[in-house]
């Protein structure tokens, strides 16, 4: 396998410092790969892909009437994060989640941050994720965002940025768990020499976080995972996590509110549910409070929740902080609530509701990424450098029509990782989604997380729905 000529080009490469020269943390892996014939690497990729398919690590494609799931493409060259670097990320993420959680509690109660003129009230009230029914709510232990999957990226110079916080129902944990399982069986030798932090205990941490949400007098609380059902694109993950935690996977139709408590229908009658790890969006949780046409939720659930008789993870309403305009204020939140300087940077963000920013954005569309404030998954987005004049004009119109709903950011040259493409190793852009669990007195960051990779040459979009794949993420012990 020839890697002497691998060229990071103008990008920050996670494994190579410069042409043919690996970074110290990646050196053992690269040396080992050099000894490996290309065919063998390809074979390993084949085996890994088959293993993932057999494990059923899939996502659904909505349009396929036969309900056939697709395997999330997987690249066998791992992404490596050095110990020191991880330590810093960990600190930064803890700080950020702590502040965001305080923000959520504040914004649905006292709203001090508005009264102190840090964030304009119009911004909060116009955020689609801001849910009026959540005003005055006090979730158990003051925790709103129990599980967060923050998206991080690196620019040309290697600096880390937070791209999105994903405080609602981030998915992907099952992929990094299964990726690791496959990597361990594919490359046991090199895995051992590299001293990689293990990730297999994520389900235990998750269960612990959920069990933490019940008052101590409940001796044997019932935890469930709530899924929209088998046609949801992340169904595999819902089922996988329920299985790994040993808890029931329920759908809305399994649940019912009786006598003021949430109950599930079992073959032996009704049984009380104490904690829900819900993978159903806020809007669909309770037809009596949110969308009345929802069949995915449970009528009366919110009432039970408000009375503290069932815990929801995450709490409804966290989406307000996923609004991309609100996102721009996170550094301010960190200063305001914690009195600290942010450890992790935001991507500089132009807010189109500010006239000055809007003018700049409209005049520089080709240099910017424009995003709708309330979209995710790579939708509702314009990447200036890859767009036609018509597309730019269309976005300009949209921005003028609804400036509040648009933000723009400079186009970052996301970092790359060597990736096996057909019969060559080429650099491909990646992001990183670590998972952060908030347990009140402790915030836990799971080592690594999901590295998503844009398999299309030059592409910056890593979403699975748009041709992205994933890699195993190796956080080194030292």
């Amino acid at each position: 396998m020839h890697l002497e000529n691998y060229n990071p080009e103008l990008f920050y490469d996670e494994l190579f410092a410069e042409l043919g020269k690996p970074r110290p943390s990646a050196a053992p892996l690269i040396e080992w790969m050099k000894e490996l014939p290309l065919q063998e690497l390809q074979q390993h990729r084949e085996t890994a892909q088959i293993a993932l398919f057999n494990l059923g690590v899939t996502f659904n494609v909505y349009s396929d009437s036969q309900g056939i799931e697709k395997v999330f493409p997987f690249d066998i060259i791992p992404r490596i994060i050095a110990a020191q670097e991880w330590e810093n990320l960990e600190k930064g993420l803890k700080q950020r989640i702590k502040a965001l959680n305080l923000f959520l509690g504040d914004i649905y109660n006292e709203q001090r941050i508005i009264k102190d003129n840090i964030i304009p009230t119009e911004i909060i009230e116009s955020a689609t994720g801001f849910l009026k029914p959540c005003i005055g709510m006090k979730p158990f232990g003051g925790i709103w965002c129990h599980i967060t999957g923050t998206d991080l990226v690196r620019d040309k110079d290697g600096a880390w940025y937070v791209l999105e916080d994903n405080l609602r129902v981030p998915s992907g944990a099952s992929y990094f768990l299964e990726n690791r399982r496959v990597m361990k069986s594919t490359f046991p030798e090199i895995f051992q020499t590299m001293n990689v932090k293990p990730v297999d205990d994520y389900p235990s941490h998750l269960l612990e976080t959920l069990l933490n949400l019940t008052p101590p007098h409940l001796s044997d609380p019932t935890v469930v995972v709530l899924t929209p059902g088998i046609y949801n694109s992340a169904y595999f993950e819902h089922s996988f996590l329920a299985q790994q935690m040993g808890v029931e996977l329920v759908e809305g139709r399994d649940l019912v509110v009786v006598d003021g408590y949430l109950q599930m229908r079992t073959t032996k009658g009704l049984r009380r549910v104490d904690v829900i790890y819900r993978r159903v969006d806020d809007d669909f949780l309770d037809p009596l409070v949110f969308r009345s046409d929802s069949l995915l939720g449970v009528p009366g659930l919110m009432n039970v929740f408000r009375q503290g008789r069932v815990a929801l993870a995450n709490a409804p309403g966290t989406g307000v902080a996923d609004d991309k305009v609100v996102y721009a204020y996170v550094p301010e939140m960190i200063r305001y609530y914690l009195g600290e300087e942010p450890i992790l940077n935001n991507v500089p963000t132009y807010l189109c509701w500010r006239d000055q920013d809007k003018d700049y954005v409209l005049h520089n569309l080709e240099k910017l990424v424009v995003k709708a404030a309330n979209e995710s998954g790579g939708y509702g987005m314009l990447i200036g450098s890859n767009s036609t004049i018509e597309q730019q004009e269309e976005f300009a119109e949209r921005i003028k029509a609804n400036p509040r709903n648009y933000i723009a950011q400079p186009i970052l040259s996301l970092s790359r990782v060597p990736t096996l493409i057909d019969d060559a190793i080429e650099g491909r852009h990646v992001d990183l989604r670590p998972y952060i669990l908030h347990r009140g007195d402790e915030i836990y960051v799971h080592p690594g997380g999901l590295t998503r990779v844009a398999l299309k040459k030059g592409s910056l979009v890593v979403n699975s729905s748009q041709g992205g794949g994933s890699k195993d993420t190796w956080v080194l012990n030292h």
Partner: protein
Amino acid sequence: MLSRVADSIYWLNRYIERADNVARFVDVNLNLMLDLPDGLSQQWEPLILTTGDLELFKERYGKATPDNVIQFLTFDAKYPNSIFSCVQLARENARSIREIISSEMWEQVNGFFMMVKDASQRPVRTTLPNFFTQTKLASHRFAGVMDATMTRNEGWHFGQMGRLQERADKTARILDVKYFYLLPSVEWVGTPLDQIQWISLLRSVSAYEMYRKSQRRITPNSVAEFLILNREFPRSIHFCLKEVERSMHEVTGTPIGTWCNSAERSIGRLCAELGYLTIDDVIDVGLHEFLDQMQKRINEVGVKMWETFFAIEPIVNKTTTTMSQRLGNMSQTMG
């Protein structure tokens, strides 16, 4: 266990078993038709008759030609009891309870569906016998894997009930096929052709060898007795229903011989009757009439099970419930 989950694991097993039995149906007929003496025309309609879906078939295909019947029963994605549909539905059910069943079970169902799907894309007559063999094997494999990897918990028992209830029903129907076969005239009874038909029938339920060991000579009454009343042969109606009864009582904890819900009562009555019947009683009623009645009774057990275990309605203000109950499975599949 969640009612929905119990329902899914029950149907997962029923559908696998149904696919298996449809393969047996068609396979036995293919064999029989090869043994017909010159001058006798092929009979494919009896096969459709036993499924109880003759009307639907006539509407869709008209005449019962070999190709039509085979297509209908094996690969027709629009016919809910075709092998293709059964395996697809089994897979859907399995997918909704993956965290309950073992991953090996899932892999079996998934592989089974991929195999059927592949075959359905190039349905060639010459490869059909192999396809039916593969189908039966896949069903056996699934049952074996489930047996070897799943805890004997409530889920396992519901699965068991699904499989054996389906098997009892299908054994009744397969035995009934013979009723519909027209021998050219009464004189043909007891001739080699008649013998060959009975042998094929026994083969189709994997009973030929076991039958020979216990009964030796092949007579209609003994075959019927073996497939209806035998207490040890795992595809006989009595054996299957006894197992259903046993599993049901494992779930409820009620001792066998007593009952605390209508499902236990209906299976208990049925088993008790079978326990004290002789084949002469059956013949007195008429074999076809008896089998017809038996299918209805087995159906009724299914309905009672649905009411007792799967469709648990909470006592709440009806105006606030907008639950989307999945009654679909029941209406779509009792055929």
